[in-house]
């Protein structure tokens, strides 16, 4: 017993050390920074104050940024799940070479970086872009797509979709097809069989995929910056703006912690909600 305990500890030690040094320590340091004071021209002044958090909570400007971010994350997650579910079902049921081709088609977009994909959307959405030219050719009135929340929505959706499809399909693969076949043989319509059998069985996968997509959107940086333009604000670019443009580390750190806390709370909330449903 003691031996195996020691072995386990030994095996866990390197990973724990990496996490402690690479994640926990910087977070502790960042938290300490968030309690410091920012004095223009002097940068960070040592202090022990909650004023950065108060400033965030008391200013409608920052609260609106948080609201935009949460709305974007919830919206993208819901649409992603709806779009990804059928794809994941096809992927889960496919066999042989066909499956490899499908899998590759889902994974390939991940080979192109986030920022590069956003740059691609910029070409599509720009004033003289692909979409604009097509609309002009079809003699439709011009619409502004670039630098709109819609552009950001589409951009993040395209980034997150492969992750959601892959997560869902791996869970769907584990579900015994005979369960839904049994429902069908007992007279359920395909829609009813999906609603009463497949969906409840895949709920843990839906939760995992949704949480992944939600977290990715809450922390999105490149897409909002490149496609949202100067007037659109989300949390991660705001953190970067405070730290990199204004050199206001304390406030940037405080915003990071607000973002982290809100993301954690909402994720935990969704978990509890789904767990309860699942049990019931």
């Amino acid at each position: 017993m003691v031996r195996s305990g020691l072995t386990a500890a030994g095996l866990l030690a390197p990973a724990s050390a990496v996490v402690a040094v690479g994640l926990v320590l910087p977070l502790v340091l960042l938290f300490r920074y968030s309690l410091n004071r920012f004095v223009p021209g002097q940068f960070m002044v040592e202090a022990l104050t909650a004023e950065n958090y108060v400033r965030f909570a008391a200013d409608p400007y920052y609260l609106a940024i948080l609201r935009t971010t949460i709305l974007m994350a919830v919206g993208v997650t819901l649409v992603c799940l709806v779009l990804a579910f059928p794809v994941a079902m096809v992927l889960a049921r496919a066999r042989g070479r066909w499956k490899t081709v499908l899998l590759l088609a889902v994974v390939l977009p991940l080979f192109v970086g986030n920022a590069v994909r956003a740059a691609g959307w910029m070409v599509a959405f720009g004033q003289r872009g692909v979409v604009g030219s097509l609309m002009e050719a079809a003699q439709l009135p011009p619409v502004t797509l670039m630098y709109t929340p819609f552009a950001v929505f589409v951009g993040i959706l395209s980034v997150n979709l492969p992750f959601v499809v892959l997560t869902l399909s791996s869970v769907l693969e584990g579900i015994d097809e005979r369960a839904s076949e049994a429902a069908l043989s007992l007279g359920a319509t395909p829609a009813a069989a999906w609603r009463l059998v497949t969906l409840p069985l895949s709920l843990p996968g839906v939760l995992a995929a949704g949480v992944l997509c939600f977290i990715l959107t809450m922390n999105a940086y490149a897409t909002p910056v490149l496609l949202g333009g100067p007037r659109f604000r989300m949390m991660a670019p705001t953190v970067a703006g405070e730290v990199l443009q204004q050199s206001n580390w304390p406030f940037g750190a405080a915003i990071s912690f607000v973002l982290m806390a809100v993301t954690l709370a909402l994720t935990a909330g969704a978990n509890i909600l789904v767990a309860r449903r699942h049990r019931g």
Partner: protein
Amino acid sequence: MTPPFTRRTALGALAGAGAASALPSLGGRALAAPSGQIVVGTWGGDYQNLQQAHIADPLMKPMGVQVVFDTGNDTVRKTKLMAERRLPRGSLDLAALTASGSYEMWKNGALEEIDETKVPNLRNALPQLKTKYSAPHIYTGRVILYNPKLVRTPPTSYADLWAPENAGKVGVIDIQYQTTIESAALVNGGALNDYEPGKAKLLELKNAGVKIYPTNEAMAQALKTEEVAVCIMWRARGVQWRAAGIPVEIVYPKEGVVLYVSELAVPKNARNKEAAYAYLNALLDPRPQAAFARSFGYTPTVANATVDPDVAPQVEFTPELRSRFMLQDQEYLAKNDAQLQEWWNKVFKA
């Protein structure tokens, strides 16, 4: 064949053997001469490429100094300098900064006071660009750019951006918030130490339908597609954009020509100060200065640089224009930049 036994290999061998006692025999001069590696924190793109081609390769390499570039934006560099300020050895030997940036870093004790004896070329630098803590590398002035096809009356003052005939034709750049507020202040009773009157003036521009672009490059694109017909810009950018076929004319506003200076400074905790000073001196050498003017459109900071006659009209300033030069008040900006940016984000862009 054995490799030639030079001073550098000798030093390396000595250091390797730990024979410190043998060092004095090499003489004080050998130790003080620039050698080894330096890390130059700089903007990327052409700015870095030109330093490589005209400073690092032809001037530093023959001295035995190897130059490594640490590419990034000045905001990142400032953050790095601040974060490393208390360490005995920093990661940069030189930092390229804007005039405001180097002032801020100097005020925060992150920069070395320049030893002019080690940078002899500094004596040729334009006096108004010199500081105690940096070497001016290139400079330009702020102007108005306009598209003559879309703007019938050529502007002469920043106030013309508010002319009714230009409503809806004006663009501003997000990252140029400071200079935009400043230009507005200059036509609304403000000054270089008081940007406050610029805020109300800018809100008028907002109501007239101003377009906001995230970067200089996005503005260039908007001028090209004629989404925008007038903007405030640095002359060097105007020169670059004209060369790229963007249909703009350059106007020097009657309020004055406010300067942009790109500087290089030595952090207090630089590892290789001798080589850093040598780099500063090479930076001010007339040859790379002329090369930067030709390729980049910025103006040399030293009086003895000869710019080729075909580029001179675009990069040099006439004595008349020089008499209208204005320098930003760095003390004011250090104290007010954060609040100006906050106003820009929360009120102007809202």
